[in-house]
């Protein structure tokens, strides 16, 4: 049996705002096995970053955790002392945050910043730590890294800053790496290089990775398992093959359907019509109800539980209830599947 390194149970988070309480995370549970990569995908604003920030215990002033536990090494992270947390954060659990600029100190040169985890967590000498920092900066592909160690964050491009944050996160070989859109600002060749670097890290020291991205091509490449989020909830999870080849939730269908592909030639992109619900008053039933053309009456009234599709695959949609009418995924999804299959067969020849 795979060993769980991280276990998030029933997490719920509120934000206090002038307009009322935003119920941003609603009953989220998932786990991370040792050495696996879990991709967290889904709607922008669905709570991906908030969820992973909570694992690092990085909370905003107006944020309250109303329920839930996060087990790490047999202890609940949410109950750890501040001192204990300082040891874990950046050492055992490291994070590449979505906004590189907010995790970089504008007044400190990048050499010192990247070296800092080694100084703090390993007590390494400055000279040695800086030497390693230069090596890691070269590994993440900062040109002239050694010459530019004394430059400050604002002197780097968006993608370079992102790589500086990556260097800082991986320098101390974390057990768990949380990567919040680590490659969005990178060109695809550098992205491929970073993905390879993360995979090597995983093979070398068994790092477990939570990877948030909007790029489903990247998910296909790096993920072992995938969880799909919508409006503060996980709506479907399974292995990467489950999600790409046998998606069940209408939101997952909509998501897969919105992607343009290089081979595509159409005038207009598919979208999911409508907007996500206001989470000050979350809907009583399925939050995707209003935008779901396959919605049943019960979706309006009651939240769907997780239905089991297979041992690895679960989806929260009433369409999977025995009493529900049989629906087939949209034609465009089926077309994509057929294309996948064809390619898969061609690859075997």
């Amino acid at each position, binding site marked *: 049996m795979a060993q769980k390194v991280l276990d998030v149970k029933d997490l719920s988070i509120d*934000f206090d*705002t*002038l*307009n009322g309480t935003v119920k941003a995370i609603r009953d989220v549970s998932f786990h991370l096995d040792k050495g696996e990569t879990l991709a967290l*995908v889904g*709607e*922008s*604003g669905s709570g991906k970053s*908030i969820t992973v920030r909570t694992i690092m215990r990085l909370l*905003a002033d*107006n944020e309250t955790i109303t329920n839930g536990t996060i087990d790490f090494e047999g202890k609940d992270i949410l109950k750890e002392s501040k001192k204990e947390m300082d040891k874990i954060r950046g050492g055992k659990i490291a994070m590449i945050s*979505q*906004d*590189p*600029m*907010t995790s970089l100190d504008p007044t400190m040169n990048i050499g010192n910043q990247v070296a800092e985890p080694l100084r703090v967590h390993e007590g390494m000498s400055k000279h040695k730590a800086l030497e390693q920092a230069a090596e890691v900066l070269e590994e993440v592909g900062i040109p002239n890294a050694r*010459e530019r160690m*004394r*430059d400050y964050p604002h*002197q*780097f*491009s*968006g*993608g*370079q800053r992102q790589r500086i944050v990556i260097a800082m996160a991986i320098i101390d070989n974390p057990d768990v790496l949380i990567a919040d*859109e680590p490659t*969005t*600002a*990178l*060109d*695809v*060749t*550098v*992205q*491929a290089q970073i993905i390879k670097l993360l995979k090597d890290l995983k093979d070398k020291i068994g790092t477990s990775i939570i990877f948030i991205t*909007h790029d*489903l*091509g*990247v998910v*296909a*490449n790096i993920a072992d398992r995938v969880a799909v989020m919508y409006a503060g909830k996980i709506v479907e999870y399974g292995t990467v093959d489950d999600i*790409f080849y046998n998606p069940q939730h209408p939101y997952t269908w*909509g*998501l897969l359907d*919105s*992607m*343009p592909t*290089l081979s*595509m030639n159409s005038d207009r*992109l*598919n*979208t999911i019509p409508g*907007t996500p619900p*206001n989470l*000050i008053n979350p809907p009583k039933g399925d939050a995707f109800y209003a935008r779901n053309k396959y919605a049943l009456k019960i979706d309006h009234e009651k939240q769907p539980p997780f239905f089991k599709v297979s041992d690895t695959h679960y989806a929260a949609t009433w369409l999977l209830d025995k009493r529900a009418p049989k629906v087939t995924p949209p034609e465009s999804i089926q077309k994509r599947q057929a*294309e*996948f299959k064809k*390619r*898969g067969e061609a*690859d075997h020849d």
Partner: protein
Amino acid sequence: MTKKDPIVSVKHLKQYFNVGKPDEVKAVDDISFDIYPGETLGLVGESGSGKSTTGRDIIRLYDPTDGEIDFEGKNISKLKRKQMKDFRSQMQMIFQDPYASLNPRMKVEDIIAEGLDINHLVKNADERDKRVHELLHLVNLNEEHASRYPYEFSGGQRQRIGIARALAVKPKFIIADEPISALDVSVQAQVVNLMQDIQEKEGLTYLFIAHDLSMVKYISDRIAVMYNGKIVEMADTDELYNHPLHKYTQSLLSAVPVPDPHSEKQHKIIKFDHSKPFKDDQYLQEVTPGHWLYCSDEEAKQYK
């Protein structure tokens, strides 16, 4: 047939940083290109190759080291910041780093309406509110968001605030620096459809900087590929995707990840040799009609 006059014309633009120091960077190194009214020029390429710097030069956030930038035939590269004010409502930029570009102490409605206020585009508070709400809906946010502060938003929501702000003043030309990379694919599709609708309605022109090559392919009429401060290739979109000539372009296109786990796991990327990318006798030249390649005269012959 005469081609329309370009709305933006960039001539031999150079932008160097830390000049004369060991960490000198030639961020943009002698590039020239035109953008025609109503078109979308996609700008792609290596991270750190000078795409954002090019955008920032055009909108005059930087003073170019050398070269000329014309907007509607007028040289704006020597204008002082103050004189640029007249152009600000005609030219807007959506910034790559939404968090750094939104004033954290301002409410979203004031961020979006800033341009409206400065340029006196609304008569009274009611009209201002109405326009702000309209813009929020346009980018798939709602009026409840108007009174919030930037930190109360997700990355993708912030990006949309930046888009609403840019659209507010009804500019003629927008530099969109990674406007959609922070959004989920369905919102990406919405924003791209929206940008195209507005383009059709108002004849807008875009410089669209992005890394997502399938999105760039979809939205752009023409594409320029940057590498190491230079434009190495430029052509109509289909031509570039079907017949990439530069080794860097080929490498880039081969690296686009495919949303299909089985084929993605065996994905092979064409390697590009970064050690000696340029030779002295190479420059950007038109090798077939409309297809520009950074190469030597000798190399150009094989395509002509």
